């Protein structure tokens, strides 16, 4: 199921001009505020009527200005998960959950309440009203309400942005389960590269209303021009070697061993890890007497001074043919002082490694 997003819309001196296609799975719209993410999602939802364009999920055409087709929002068969939940305050959680299902055609009522309630863990909330729920609970109910509407496309507009870190960590796994267990395409808006790394099958990076880059996350996340210097990261595939008694998991990554606080994956599993460029230090020689455990060796491929005091240094790590890249964000001053140049061998010291996907196989879509 291909997601087609062709939208041209001009308003208040801002022009959104997007023409992009994404394969099945989770498509993450990434970009800074004001880049047009929400505008694009609202055009998909029918809450905004663009000047021109074509929006389709597979053969389900929501908008085609050339064919004069425009479905009103209520006939688009969506599940829209909003940033602020938008639960109906006068209804109980159960009534909220079943609201969309009531309007769905009979053959679209594939999800049943029991399964969704169990998956989201909201069984004890069913008779309460939204006013009495915490932020995380509200968002779980909002996810359930969208699912039960029997949607052909799920939209999520920064569903975690209003939550604190602990609640984000609570909700994110539910979106991973949606991706892995529900076969509905998901269009997910985010400005967090960590969410992109964990959820995305495809990333569409927007800047000032245009597509700066689109593709699989491993490719787009390392693209400094598309992501911005602050959000560049590497996605590496590593294999779980062993779980140790001190609470760490040993991974064999390209170019060296990586250590993570214990993860759930069994030894032998390939997982995907995300390393933010800001968390990488470079050393010309293998450093001695350093507390950081994660060290990867590689060869400098490119040095790109940024517009500010920063510079991005890209390393090729692991076997030549694997093509794994790691990006480090340094100051231009360190680049000059160390005399870093393409072709040099280098040791990357990684402060933080985050698990991006439970299993790399699941993500390679």
């Amino acid at each position: 199921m291909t997601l087609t997003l062709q939208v041209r819309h001009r308003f208040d001196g801002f022009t959104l001009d997007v023409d992009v296609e994404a394969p099945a799975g989770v498509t993450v719209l990434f970009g800074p505020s004001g880049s047009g993410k929400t505008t694009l999602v609202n055009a998909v939802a029918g809450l905004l009527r663009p000047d021109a364009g074509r929006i389709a999920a597979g053969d389900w055409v929501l908008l085609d200005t050339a064919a004069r087709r425009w479905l009103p929002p209520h006939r688009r068969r969506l599940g829209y998960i909003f940033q602020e939940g938008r639960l109906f305050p006068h209804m109980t959680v159960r009534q909220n959950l079943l609201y969309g299902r009531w309007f769905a055609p009979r053959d679209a009522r594939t999800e049943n309440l029991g399964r969704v309630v169990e998956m989201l863990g909201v069984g004890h909330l069913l008779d309460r009203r939204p006013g009495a729920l915490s932020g995380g609970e509200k968002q779980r109910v909002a996810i359930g309400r969208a699912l039960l509407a029997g949607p052909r496309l799920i939209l999520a507009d920064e569903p975690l942005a209003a939550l604190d870190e602990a609640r984000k960590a609570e909700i994110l796994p539910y979106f991973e389960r949606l991706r892995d267990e529900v076969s509905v395409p998901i269009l997910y808006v985010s400005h967090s590269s960590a969410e992109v790394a964990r959820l995305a099958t495809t990333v569409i990076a927007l800047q000032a209303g245009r597509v700066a880059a689109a593709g699989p996350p491993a490719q787009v996340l390392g693209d400094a021009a598309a992501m911005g210097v602050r959000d560049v990261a590497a996605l590496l595939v590593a294999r779980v070697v062993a779980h140790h008694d001190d609470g760490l998991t040993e991974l064999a990554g390209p170019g060296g061993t990586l250590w993570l606080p214990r993860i759930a994956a069994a030894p032998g599993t390939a997982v995907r890890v995300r390393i933010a460029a800001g968390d990488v230090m470079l050393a010309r020689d293998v450093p001695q007497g350093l507390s950081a455990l994660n060290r990867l060796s590689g060869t400098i491929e490119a040095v790109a001074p940024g517009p500010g005091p920063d510079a991005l240094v890209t390393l090729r790590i692991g076997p030549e043919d694997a093509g794994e890249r790691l990006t480090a964000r340094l100051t231009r001053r360190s680049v000059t002082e160390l005399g870093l140049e393409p072709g040099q061998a280098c040791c990357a010291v990684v402060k933080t490694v985050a698990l991006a996907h439970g299993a790399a196989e699941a993500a390679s879509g």
Partner: protein
Amino acid sequence: MWDWAAGWLGPAEWQAVRLSLRVSFWATLASLPLGILVAYALARWEFPGKQVLNGLVHLPLILPPVVTGYLLLITFGRRGTVGQFLEQWFGIVLSFRWTGAAVAAGIMAFPLMVRAIRLAIEAVDPRLEAAAATLGASRPWVFATVTLPLILPGIIAGSILAFAKAIGEFGATITFVSNIPGQTQTIPSAIYAFLQVPGGQDAATRLVIVAIVIAMAALLLSEFVSRRVARVVAGT
């Protein structure tokens, strides 16, 4: 209590009280659908002539009631254009009937009703309605399942306010439908009539007490009901 009230009040007074309640009840109920529609239009729609409509709705509030009553008489009276039309085609006669009193009371109370409902509609978050639309609800369904329940406190408050106003309506009523005992003599007209005859003070005083009790009861009821409903609507 009904019997006791009827016994305490003289038959003419009791008749006026019952008529007032009937007139006000129907005036409120009949103007409610139009009141919600006009309030919705004023709160949400942009259309040419919106300010004119707003002015028309509020006109009875600022015009001398006698003027409103006279305008009703020349349009809805038996010689008035609308009055003739209603009589010929539907057999409805408003002038000098209790139905005419209800029309007068309804029009005089309309601005208060519309104002309360309009404020309630403006307080509804349109993003909730958008959310309902994305979940498959068409416009009428969005209104019935989201907007209407959320503005219910405003509708109740507006209705009770309109009812109380209708009970007290005097100028437009007496001008339009006169002061016929049993037909168009509501509490205020009856008080006025009793005060015109020697020895009528006692009857007038009793009706004044009734008027105060009805007004207070309406206010308290409105407060109570809209608080209950607001609690449900607020979702706690």
